């Protein structure tokens, strides 16, 4: 109880710090210089309809590279822990027949939807992260349906590695062929609003999507405990 009281006291103080900002906060009426550049110049510079995507993939592409690295590191650590404690998982109850059938029907559809989301990331809301998450959800559904089914962990590792590596290579392509690391203007901007537009943005986003999907999937698999991750590794 004392702990809770103390926590409330501390949080009240923290609240004053946060509200000290809110009290002087004035909602902006117009964009600042940086964001107005993104809105007004981006369609000409990069040609992506979705400005958020342009920012995520190109202007702040290094953040995105860092972000997939974080997911990568998390999945590596999860894998490491599994590896250290291999052969410690228990068998699980099978899902119902209905769930199994439903899942196997839905699986390709969800995959397709995921792919759609990250391919259209530069045109509409959505993109690599969301698409990747959708792919991982599809996988999770199959796991739920068949808890004891063997799912190849290595497959995800391969996708993760290849797409990560390609991401870096695309970045270097920007460095060599265009203005700088992760510059998407290696390819021409194309017709505004089309799928095949906005230079490398859709290409990069596809690989981001694949990578995020694979990373999330491998985390899910590891946590599920049926990854066989350790067994597949030689030592």
């Amino acid at each position, binding site marked *: 109880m004392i*702990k*809770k009281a103390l*926590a*409330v006291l*501390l*949080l009240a103080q*923290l*609240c004053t710090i*946060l*509200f000290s900002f*809110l009290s002087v*906060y004035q*909602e*902006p*009426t*117009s*964009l*600042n210089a*940086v*964001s107005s550049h*993104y*809105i*007004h110049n981006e*369609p000409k510079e990069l040609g992506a*309809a*979705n*400005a*958020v995507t*342009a*920012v*995520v993939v190109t202007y*702040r592409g290094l*953040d*995105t590279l*860092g*972000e*997939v690295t*974080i*997911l990568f*590191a*998390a999945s590596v*650590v*999860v894998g490491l*822990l599994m590896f250290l*404690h291999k052969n*410690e998982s228990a068998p699980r109850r099978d899902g119902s027949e209905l769930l199994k059938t439903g899942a196997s029907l839905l699986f390709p559809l969800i995959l397709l939807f995921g792919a759609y989301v990250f391919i259209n990331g530069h*045109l*509409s*809301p959505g*993109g690599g*992260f969301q698409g990747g998450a959708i792919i991982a959800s599809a996988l999770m559904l199959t796991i739920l349906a068949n808890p004891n089914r063997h799912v190849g962990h290595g497959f995800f590792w391969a996708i993760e590695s290849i797409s990560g590596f390609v991401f870096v290579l695309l970045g270097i392509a920007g460095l060599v062929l265009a203005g700088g690391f992760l510059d998407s203007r290696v390819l021409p901007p194309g017709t*505004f*609003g089309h799928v095949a537009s906005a230079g490398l943005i859709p290409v990069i986003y596809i690989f981001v999507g694949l990578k*995020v999907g694979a990373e*999330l999937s491998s*985390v899910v698999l*590891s*946590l599920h405990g049926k990854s066989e991750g350790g067994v597949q590794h030689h030592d």
Partner: protein
Amino acid sequence: MTSTIAMTTGILLVLIGLFAILTQKDLIRIIVGFSIFDIGVHVIMISIGYISDATAPIIENLSQLGQSYVDPVPQALVLTAIVIGLGISAFMLTFAVFMFKKRGSLDINSFRDLKW
């Protein structure tokens, strides 16, 4: 006004999350606290970029450039932050699972092997 409401919501979520983090004993519930905290932070971030009566920063065609858009930067940052948050949640949960394996308890008070 919209942004103030949203920001207040965000701050409340942050505080609720922190309260959970500071008072819950169970590791998993502490991690739930962190998710709440994270979402609160995201709401605060998005509300900073909001401009009244502006639309989402998706340009349907080039002729619409004159209209008012919300700031895409906080949104881009939050996209990144959400994925990082997921990574960290998964990370913490894995730790919790293995800590449970070792100790047979999820009570944070039972992990005091290193001190002083």
